[in-house]
Every structure is written in structure tokens, then in C-alpha cells.
């Protein structure tokens, strides 16, 4: 490295550093937050008055499922899952939610769907009807959506569909709408195995 090119190099470096420090000074978080608040505060427009149904949508093994939110207590992140011995494979274990022990059900195994490893973004959807309470594991939570009722079609009848009896219908996007009442009342989920 010759001295002249070395000098130029150092000069360029110094200029870039000055620019960076200037940029740091101009970035103001308060301004960003204020802009977002303004955007959120804008009123909703042109809502059509059609019958709609609210659905909680989540992904499981690459497929999307939907649940009626009326039996959903809340959604919690999956933390500290404790496996319980002498339970069927679809009972993954129990988690503590606000001081209660709730069993977690893996619908993939319950419906005999292809397994995918747990990711960091796993969440648990807590279902309850006052008598029965458990959590459903889901890969990705997509949030709630409202769909027009006419878009919901009856479930397709397949032979040997393990989900038969648990489906309320199918949306236009082929989301399977699960029946939370049936799941909560399913005697298979009451595990009482003795060893």
C-alpha cells in the first residue's frame, strides 16, 4: 500500500464516519411513533352491512385452520412444556397458565397430519367451555378475521378423513373451520390411563 493511496483511504473513511454520526442525530423515535398513531387514528371506511362471522385463524403443518373465538379463552406463548407420562402421543404435556395447569393438545398427531418440528413461534390457543379446558398447539397465529357467512361452505366429504366430525365448514381459501364444541366434548381427550 503506497502512502498516497493510504492517505486517500483514510480520508474516505473519515467522511463516512461523519455522515453516520449525523444520521444518528436526526433519527427521532418520538416522531415515528406519532406518525403511526396518526395512521391508526384514521376512521374505518365503507363497511358493508352483511352477515359476518369472526374466526381465529392459525397455521398447522402448512395448512390454515380457523376456530370460532367464542370458546377461546386466550392465546399464550408456549413456555416450559412439561411432558406427562402415560398419555397418548397427541397430549404433548402440560403448561402453567396464570396459576392453572392446562394440558396441550397437538392437533397434528390427533388428526394424524405430517409432523413438523416445534419452532420458536409456537403459541397455544386455550379453549374452555366451563367444564373442559385445554390448549391447542399451533405453528403460527394469524389473528382474527371476519368473513361473510356465505363464503363458508360445508366441509368436503372425504373417505377416511380423520378430521371428519370435527369440521364445521370450509372457507373459500380452504381454511378448515374446527368445531370447538365438539373438540371440548370429545371423550377421547379425557385421558385416564392407569399404569
Amino acid at each position, binding site marked *: 500500500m503506497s502512502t498516497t493511496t493510504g492517505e486517500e483511504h483514510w480520508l474516505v473513511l473519515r467522511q463516512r464516519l461523519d455522515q453516520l454520526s449525523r444520521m444518528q442525530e436526526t433519527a427521532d423515535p418520538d416522531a415515528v411513533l406519532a406518525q403511526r398513531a396518526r395512521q*391508526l387514528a384514521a376512521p374505518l371506511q365503507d363497511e358493508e352491512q352483511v352477515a359476518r362471522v*369472526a374466526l381465529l385463524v392459525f397455521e398447522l403443518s402448512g395448512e390454515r385452520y380457523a376456530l370460532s373465538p367464542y370458546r377461546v379463552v*386466550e392465546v399464550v406463548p408456549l413456555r416450559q412444556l412439561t411432558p406427562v407420562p402415560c398419555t397418548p402421543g397427541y397430549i404433548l404435556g402440560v403448561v402453567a397458565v396464570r396459576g392453572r395447569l392446562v394440558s396441550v393438545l397437538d392437533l397434528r398427531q390427533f388428526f394424524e397430519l405430517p409432523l413438523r418440528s416445534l419452532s420458536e413461534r409456537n403459541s397455544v390457543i386455550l379453549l374452555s367451555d366451563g367444564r373442559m379446558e385445554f390448549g391447542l398447539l399451533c405453528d403460527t397465529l394469524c389473528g*382474527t378475521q371476519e368473513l361473510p357467512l356465505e363464503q363458508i361452505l360445508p366441509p368436503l366429504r372425504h373417505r377416511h378423513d380423520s378430521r371428519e366430525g370435527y369440521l364445521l365448514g370450509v372457507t373459500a381459501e380452504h381454511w378448515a373451520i374446527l368445531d370447538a364444541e365438539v373438540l371440548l366434548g370429545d371423550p377421547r381427550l379425557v385421558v385416564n390411563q392407569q399404569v
Partner: protein
Amino acid sequence: MERLEHLTTRSKLLLSFGVVFLLLLAVSWSSARSLQQLQSAQQRLYDTYVAQLLSLKNIRINLNSNRADILQLLMSNGISNDEKIQQRMYQRGQDDESAMQQLITNNVARPQMLAVLNRMVDVRHQYQAVRERQLQAIRSGDSQALEQAQTLAVEEQAQRVEQLRSLADQASQLIEQNVALLQQQSSDTLQRQESLLLGTAVLAALLIIALVIWLNRQLALPLAALTQWAQRIAQGELLQSTAVSQRRDEVGQLSRAFYQMGSYLSALASQAERIAGGELELAAKPVSERDLLGSAFAGMTRYLAALSGSAAQIAGGDLTVVIAPRSERDVLGTAFAAMVGNLRELVQQLRSGIDVLADASQEILSMTAQVAASAQETSVSVNEISTTVEEVKQTAGQASERARTMTAAAQQAAQVGQQGKQAVEVTLERMQQIREQMQDVADSIVQLSERSQAIGEVVTTVNGLAEQSNLLGVNASIEAAKAGEVGRGFSVVAQEVKLLAEQSKQATSQARALLGETQKAVNRAVMTAEQSSKAVDKGYQQASLSGGAIQQLLESLQGSSAASLQIAAASQQQVQGMDQVVIAMTNIRKASEDNVAGTRQAEQAALNLHELGRKLMSQMASFKV
């Protein structure tokens, strides 16, 4: 006699024993006849004389008995006129009468005896007549007559009895004389017989002795001679007997057979001698099929001929001959086979040895040729060296001059070296400074890296917050849905919260990627600083080495200055030394010329050796193995 000699031995023996037997027979016959004569003489003696004596004795006894009877009758005086006694007396008288008659008839030939006997008859008749009267007297019983009778008896009759007794004695004596005569005759006969027997025995003995001598001469002596001959043959002497008996008996046959055996054996012996002398061409033929010795000889000759044939082949150099011993005890065959094996091995070893010798001699020849050439070259070289040494001598003088100029140059170089050393020391100081600065830069960069790590943690925290906000948004929307139409506005807010949370998450992930890149750049910077620092270290060490090298150069320059001085002196000495070298080279030249001559001789010797090797090889080629 010649005819006797030609008789067979059996006939001879039969003849001899027949003669002896005949002699014995003659002697026995004559003895038997003599014994017979003796016996008849004895019989005659007994018949003639003993009977007469007995008769005479009987007559005397009867006379005595009758005398006693008559005396008894007379004594009894006729009282006992016993008829019985008278009867007895008559009986006796008749017996005597017949005995007397018998004696007379027997002795008619002898007049003396006859006279005595006739007298006796007369006396007896007188006696009987008297006795008859006496008996009448007794029978009459007349005592006178009886007394007369008694007187007669005592006187007359007693004389007559006595007369008779003496006559009888006379007769007995005559008879005894005859007996003695007869005995004399017998003993004569006996004596004659004895002498005859003795003569016959002596004759027989003489004849036997003669026979023995004859047989001895005819059989024993020739047999003994043959036995001796046989013993000598047994001891190995094979003398040719010139005297061969022409007799036709067994001895002659035996002698001829012995002669044949001797000639057979001597023929074999001469053959064996010839074999011993090495002549094996004469094939010995057996005389007959049963000629064991001859066939053995023939076999031996064949065997030896075969062996000699093999030996001839071996002598001709053909060692491929295979000699199979006849048996395990075939010493000659085994030895021959072993000899052939050893010869074969020896020839092979010799051949290989000669090959080696030929090769070696070839090599020696080429070597000596080389040595000769080398010696020649050496001689030339020595000449060149001599001239070179002369040149060197001149050069050494020049070298001495150069060495002096070099000394001055070396001192100048030492001064330059001193300056170089100082420059290197300055360089080292600068390098040290650069090294410290580089370490400072590296420390700063590491601090920067630590800061960016802290920023990463902050980003992680923000990401967690965004996650929770997302869930919070979802839960809020669920609650809003549960609330139905009332919660509709809240639902929108919840959706927005969720949206914001997701945007935050995206921002944090971008920040995280940027931080990762920054971290990589920082790592590169640290590594670059480290490499620079190491380069500076290397430069520092290199400069140190340069300083040391310059120091050594300085020292060596000082040393070389001194050395060039020494060189100048040494070159002077060299000039003197070169003079000595010239003298030595002259000696070497002479020696190398001697070497050349010696090498020529060695070359000649090697040539001879090579020739010898070739000859041996050609000779060995005649051996077939």
C-alpha cells in the same frame, strides 16, 4: 596184477574179504574135524576099556559075594540050608560066565589079555566044581562031609580066589595099559591139530597183511595223494598235476576228475588274473548251465565291462552316464555312482568357477588396460602440473600484491558497516512504535464489537416485546369478537396493534441482520489488525537480524583486513613452497613412468590369465553333465 589194478574198488574189497572168509572157513572146518576125531576116540575108549574094567570089577565083586555066601553056609553047618542063597549064588555065577565070555570076544585081537582071561576061566571052572561039592555036602547035612567041605573052603578054595584076584588084577593092568596107549594117541592127535590150526592162522594173518598192504597201495595212497591235492586246491594252489593215473577204477576216475577240476580252476584263475590285469574283452563262457562259478565269473566280467564302459564314457567327458548300483551292497557300483555324482558336481563347480575366472580375467584385462591408459594420462598430467606449478608460483607473487591492496579496501568497508549498523538501530525504534499503535487499534475495534453485541441484546428485547404485542393484539381481537358488534371498533384497534407488532418484528430482524454484518466486519478488522501486528513483529525481527548481520559483517571485515595481511605473507611463503613442489613433481613424474611400465606387465599377465580362462572353458565344454 594189472588186471587186478583195473578192478573197481568194490570188487577189490570183495575179493580181499572173500579170501579172508575162505581162510577162516578152512580153519574152522579143520578144527571141527579134529574135535570130532577126539570125541570118537573118547567114545571108543569108554566103550572098549571102561566097560571091560567094570565087568572085571563086577566079576571080582560077585566072586567075593559068592565066597562070603559059601562061607556063611559052611559056618552055619548046614542048619540054614537056604535055597535062596544058593539061587543067588548061581545067578551070580551065570552073570560072571556071560561077562567072561564077553570079555573074551572083545579081546580076541589081544593075545596077552586072552591068555590071562582063559586062565581065569580055567581057575573059575575049578572053583565052581569044588563049590558044587561043598554045596552037596551042605545039602547032605553030613557033618563029615561038611567038615571036609569046610577044610576045602579054607585051603583050596581060598587059593583059587586069590589066584582069580591076581588074574583080574593082571587083566586090569593090561586094560589100563591100553587106555594109556589110547590117551597117548589122543594127545598126539590134539597136538597135530594145534599145529595145523596155528599154521593156518599164521598163513591167514600173512595173507591179510599182504591184502592190507595191497589195498593200501591200491586205494589209500592214491586217495591220500588226491586229498593232499584237494587240500592244496582248497588253500588256493592250482598246480598242474603231470602224473594222471590211467587206471580205470574209481581212484583213476577221481584223479582224472581232480585233474579236470584243477584245469578248470586254473583256467578260471588265469582268466581272473587277466581280469585283474584289466583285460575284460575275453568273455568267460560257463562250461554248463550249472556252472555257477563260471556264470558268476561271466557275470562279474560283464559287470566290470559295463562299469569300465561307463568309466570310458566318463573318461571321454560324458558325465551324463547313469550308474545304478545292482544292490545296496554293490560297493563298487555305489562308489562309482558317488564318483560320477561328485565328478558331475565338481565339473559344474569348476565350470562356474571358470566362468567366474573368465569374467574376472576379462574385467582385470579391461581394468589393467584402463589403468595403463590412466597411468599414461597421469604421466601427461604430471607434466602439465609441473608447468602449472610454475605459473602458480608467479601468480602467488601477484596474489601477495593484491592482498595488500585488499587490506586497505577492507578497512574502508568496515567504516561503511558501522554507519549501516546505526541506521538499523533507528529502524528498530520506529518499528516498536508502530507495533504499539497497532495494538491500540485492535483494542478499539474489540470495544466496538462489544458495543454492537449490546445493541444486539437490545434488539432481542425489542423482538420479544413485539412478539408479546402480537399476542396481545390477537387476544384483544378475540375479546373483541366475543363482544360482537360492540367490540367492533376495538377489534380494528387490536388489528392495528397486531400489525404494528409485526412491523416491529420485521424491523428488529433487519436490525439483527445489520448487526450480524457489523460483527463480521469487526471480526475482519480485528484479524487484519492482528496480521498487521504480526507483520510488524516480523519486520522488527528481520531488522534485528539485519543489525546482527551488519555487526557480523563489520567483524568479518575487520577479520578479513587482518587475514589479507596474513595472505600477503602466506603468498610469499607459497612462492617458496612452489619451488619444493616442482622438485616433488619431478619425482612423481619418474614414479608415474615406472607405473606405466608396471601396468604394461600387469596387462600382459592379465592377458595370459584371460587366455588360460578361455582354454579352461573350452576344455570344460568337453564335459557333458
